[in-house]
């Protein structure tokens, strides 16, 4: 960071951008992250020293920046990334959270996890190899998880003599594939993470490239409209009843806005009861707000005294979500024990907790080719399929495409309590 006044308004008022990366050992992902962190001065001297010590102990010739990100002992020993690691850095413009995930097909579930909260996905392509199966996989997962923006980093440009032809042909190859994806915004940038070309500084090595550096793109990409601001959804999380003398009659519904904008005085409907009432106040600690929007955590008070509890949803009377016990989801399986049709699982959706039964697997998707495959009644770890579920109680939901909050759910094994599957509602 530059030496500015960090307690000034601009620094207290930065935007947060979450991006995911996926990649395997040799594609330069760790070098890229290392460079973004290092150039924004987010790697500290003692961390660098620790990595230096570890690199020397291992007999490496140069500093292995991957040791900065590979946090678990098993990962350092085996030289692989087996989980999602979260990294943080800030520039004078934005604060960033990186969800760093491994790239191999056996870590599809980790990529899905990292992608679930991202605004932007960085897809790394090795300029020497062009678009590969791994590129397809990362892009498909990003699209399935509805990451609104993709940045295609054509890396190792130094190893192809910074050739414009190579870059353009990769770009062309990717865009023809991308037409099959549901991604609104795709950017391309030719880089060399190792040499630092187009990461933070522009480069003289590629005068033919007129676009911004990777950091410039990350700092300026418009993420304000990534939340759904159209369809008001408020899953009730917790009921606040102080039962003190001062607030004897206070009854507030605490939760996080999952969609749309709620204003004081709005006519609202409560699901599942269908009762209509209006918003008396929007409380946030001692303040009363005029309006609230995603992802704000607030407390709503209503003009009528209704029986409302956790798992209910407050919406607008003229804009209600789907209400059903039958739903189709794109399911990614996360556990060694395959999913079984006919089996009952616990299910969490927004703040609601129900049980469900897997009715059928409609088709599976080959994450490398996007082709549909049909191979039996089980869904194994890291596989993705369209699945029909029936729940014990109705859910209030939107399609995942419309709203990532009200369109997502997790499936839990009732014996182990482990999260075994994750679903995006079709």
């Amino acid at each position, binding site marked *: 960071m530059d030496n500015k*006044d*960090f*307690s000034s308004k601009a*620094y*207290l008022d*930065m*935007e*947060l951008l979450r991006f995911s990366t996926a990649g395997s050992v040799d594609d330069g992902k760790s070098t890229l992250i290392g460079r973004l962190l290092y150039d924004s001065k987010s790697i*500290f*001297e*003692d*961390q660098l020293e*620790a990595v230096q*010590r570890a690199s020397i102990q291992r007999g490496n010739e140069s500093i292995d920046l991957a040791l900065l*990100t590979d*946090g*678990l*002992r*098993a990962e350092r020993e085996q030289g692989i990334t*087996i*989980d*999602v*690691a*979260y990294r943080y850095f*800030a520039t004078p413009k934005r*604060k960033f959270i990186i969800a760093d995930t491994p790239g191999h097909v056996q870590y599809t*579930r980790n990529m899905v*996890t990292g992608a*679930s*909260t991202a605004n932007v996905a960085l897809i790394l392509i090795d300029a020497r190899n062009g678009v590969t199966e791994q590129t397809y996989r990362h892009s498909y997962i990003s699209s399935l998880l509805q990451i609104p923006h993709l940045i295609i980093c054509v890396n190792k440009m130094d190893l192809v003599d910074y050739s414009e032809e190579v870059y353009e042909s990769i770009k062309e190859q990717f865009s023809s594939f991308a037409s099959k994806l549901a991604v609104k915004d795709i950017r391309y940038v030719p880089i060399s993470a190792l040499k630092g070309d187009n990461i933070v500084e522009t480069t003289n090595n590629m005068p033919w490239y007129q676009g911004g550096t990777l950091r410039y793109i990350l700092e300026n990409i418009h993420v*304000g409209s990534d939340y759904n*601001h159209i369809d008001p959804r408020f899953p009730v*999380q*917790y009921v*606040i009843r102080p*039962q*003190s003398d*001062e*607030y004897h009659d*206070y009854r507030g519904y*605490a939760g*996080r806005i999952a969609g749309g*904008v709620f204003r004081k005085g709005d006519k609202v409907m409560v699901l599942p009861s269908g009762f209509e009432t209006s918003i008396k106040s929007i409380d946030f*600690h001692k303040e009363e707000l005029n309006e609230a*929007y995603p*992802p*704000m*955590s607030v407390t709503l008070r209503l003009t009528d005294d209704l029986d409302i509890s956790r798992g209910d949803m407050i919406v607008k009377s003229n804009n209600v979500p789907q209400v059903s016990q039958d739903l189709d989801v794109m399911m990614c399986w996360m556990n060694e024990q395959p999913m079984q049709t006919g089996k009952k699982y*616990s299910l969490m*959706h*927004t703040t609601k907790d129900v049980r469900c039964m897997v009715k059928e697997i409609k088709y599976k998707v080959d994450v490398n080719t996007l082709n549909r495959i049909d191979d039996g009644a089980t869904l194994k770890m890291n596989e993705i399929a369209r699945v029909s579920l029936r729940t014990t109680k109705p859910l209030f939901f939107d399609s995942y495409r419309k709203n*990532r*909050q009200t369109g997502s*759910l*997790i499936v*839990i094994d009732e014996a182990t*309590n*482990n*999260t075994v599957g*994750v679903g995006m509602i079709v």
Partner: protein
Amino acid sequence: MKKYNLSHLRELESESIFIMREVASQFEHPALLFSGGKDSIVMVHLAVKAFWPAKIPFPLVHIDTGHNFAETIKFRDDLVKETGARLIVGSVQETIDSGKVAEETGFDASRNLLQTQTLLDTLEEHKVDAALGGGRRDEEKARAKERFFSHRDEFGQWDPKNQRPELWNIFNGKKNMGEHFRVFPLSNWTEMDVWQYIYLESIKIPNLYFTHERAVFKRDGAWLADAPFMKKRDTEEVVVKNVRCRTIGDITNTGVTLSTANTLEDIIQEIAATRVTERGDRADDKRSESAMEDRKKEGYF
């Protein structure tokens, strides 16, 4: 800021409040681990906001090593009085007296490892099924992979290779008998975010964080505060310096920084310019490359 955009601090605040409300909803006996440091003070502030105008619906748990800065205890008691929260104190001295653990000896003796036993005993005694901690992912590389809802088996152990997937903002707190969770609402905050938030919200913090004169001595390149129970080598000379704490923990392994930072603005500038992490002076982390991971597996904070 454009319309309908939250600033990074408000987004982090909202996320943390959501986590705290989720804990209050999903668990029967949650508790907030209070160390007296700035992160746990911010946690209490967020908890007050999350449940206002009701009181915080869970107690604060302080694991007292007996080797505290005196200011920490006074600050804790004032905060408890102000918020009306319930306080539970677990005493490391009592764990030692009971013979369950033996005190480390020598110059680098610390009660840091011993407090894991006291912590687990205290959680068990009060049937705590979710312990909220102020840990952040930017602090240390083992923490970078920890979940918001971190599952512990019946021995209080963490299994880093077998963590539950955690997606979107759906948090699975289901568990079997005897198991519990550690929950980290500040996971996505950085040290800078914490300071900026303290500034933004005018949160009261102990004076130890601001510059003051203190008797200190140098060990392994770091300044440590002098106290009656600190064993010093002959070569370690006590001098008086202008210092402040960057983290506050047990005195025996909390380094102090030479600093003249007198206001929150000064501190924020200092953090921005500094080139060493806040745990860089923590003797407990330097024991090995995976010191933190090993302690966490056994049930450490």
